[in-house]
């Protein structure tokens, strides 16, 4: 049987094909290495995130910061079920409408302006509710902890501080100023536009007394002057005890703080067009809105 001898052209083509297949195999191996490295990088980043999160919330931070973080976390994450069970609770006052057609906005969103001071016991009282309410619309960063003056009424009331804090929300803007610390030393200065609002609306005819604090302006439509619940419920309690009690709708603090927060939230919902619905249509907030419409 005669064997056909491979033609030189056929042999060259076969060799070229073989070389190409080898090159493709090498390319594939190289690509696979790159892919495995890329997957590895993504996994390392994810593990890095988790480790960084664990480290920042545990051993590396000072005990005081950890305690403060625990307080802020508890105060800003009160479960909806607690708000719903409390309704208006033990709140004694609701944000009052501002007469006239005013509006206070920033970045295209209704703005909440808080003016207070760290020494002031009524500010110390009101802040818990303001923080609880605003946390339903957005996120605070760098909230601090402090106590009211040791020489004033309701001395040493444990509270949060807006000094140095920031707030981000899709629905609202917020500016909080603590004009003095607990030793009555100067702290935050109001920028001209906020000072103008404060000096206009925290004075007669809008209020009975001049420049009282805490002063909270809700979008130029509603305002709070003074504490909206009895400050004595906070007396003798630590920051953590108060923050944890806010999560308990059966506690006196929960009834007072969450009830006030529901009233503030209901007013804020009027500013945001009832957004977010999950907050504004919740039983606690609708109960508060109903109570205010009936009052």
């Amino acid at each position: 049987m005669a064997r056909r001898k491979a033609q030189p052209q056929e042999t060259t083509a076969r060799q070229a094909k073989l070389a190409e297949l080898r090159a493709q195999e090498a390319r594939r191996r190289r690509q696979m290495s790159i892919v495995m490295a890329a997957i590895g990088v993504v996994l390392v980043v994810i593990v890095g995130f988790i480790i960084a999160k664990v480290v920042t919330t545990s051993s590396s931070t000072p005990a005081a910061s950890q305690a403060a973080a625990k307080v802020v976390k508890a105060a800003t994450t009160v479960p909806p079920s607690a708000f719903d069970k409390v309704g208006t609770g033990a709140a004694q006052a609701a944000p009052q409408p501002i007469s006239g057609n005013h509006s206070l906005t920033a970045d295209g969103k209704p703005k909440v302006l808080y003016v207070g001071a760290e020494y002031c016991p009524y500010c110390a009282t009101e802040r818990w509710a303001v923080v609880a309410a605003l946390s339903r619309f957005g996120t605070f960063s760098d909230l601090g902890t402090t106590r009211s003056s040791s020489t004033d009424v309701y001395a040493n009331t444990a509270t949060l501080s807006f000094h140095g804090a920031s707030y981000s929300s899709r629905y609202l803007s917020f500016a909080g100023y603590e004009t003095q610390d607990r030793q009555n030393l100067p702290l935050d200065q109001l920028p001209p536009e906020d000072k103008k609002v404060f000096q206009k609306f925290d004075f007669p005819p809008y209020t009975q007394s001049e420049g009282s604090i805490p002063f909270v302006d809700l979008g130029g439509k509603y305002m709070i002057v003074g504490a909206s619940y009895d400050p004595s419920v906070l007396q003798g309690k630590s920051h953590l005890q108060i923050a944890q009690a806010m999560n308990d709708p059966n506690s006196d603090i929960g009834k007072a703080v969450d009830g006030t927060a529901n009233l503030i939230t209901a007013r804020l919902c009027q500013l945001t067009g009832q957004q977010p619905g999950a907050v504004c249509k919740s039983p606690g907030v609708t109960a508060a809105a109903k109570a205010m419409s009936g009052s």
Partner: protein
Amino acid sequence: MDRTTPEVHVPAWAIPTSLVVCGLGLLDAAYLTFEHYTASTTLACSETATVNCLRVTTSSYADVLGIPFAVLGVVFFLGMGLLCLPAAWRRPGRPLRLLRVAGAVVGVLVALYLVWVELFRLDAICLYCTGVHVLTFVLFVVVALGSAAIVDETLASEREYDGST
């Protein structure tokens, strides 16, 4: 003439796995989109201090340039679903393959950004969002490994034709 037509050999697992992942991702993102446009009134998620979907989905980080990330998720999984159809996987040449890999890379980068936001900005985890992030990562792995394992004989024949190596 007994030369067979050059083919694109795709790993058997790549097509069904990528399609299933895209389908699940699409469902998850569609649910988050529905919740976004219905004001999150029916968001079925626990609201503890750590796991809190509402806190995440209604945060200021929930959209970019006015477009909700949930909507971008739907667009992403729809687009990737099209790029992961059998015909697309088996299409000869590099452009579609590169587009699929680029899409998966963009997806995983966005997912990493959103995980960072949840952990370090919002201090809250949204379970449905985490589902989307996990599916995006799985899709990245499937697309990357599947694309690297493709044997494309047409490229060999093109080079042969070009005389290139």
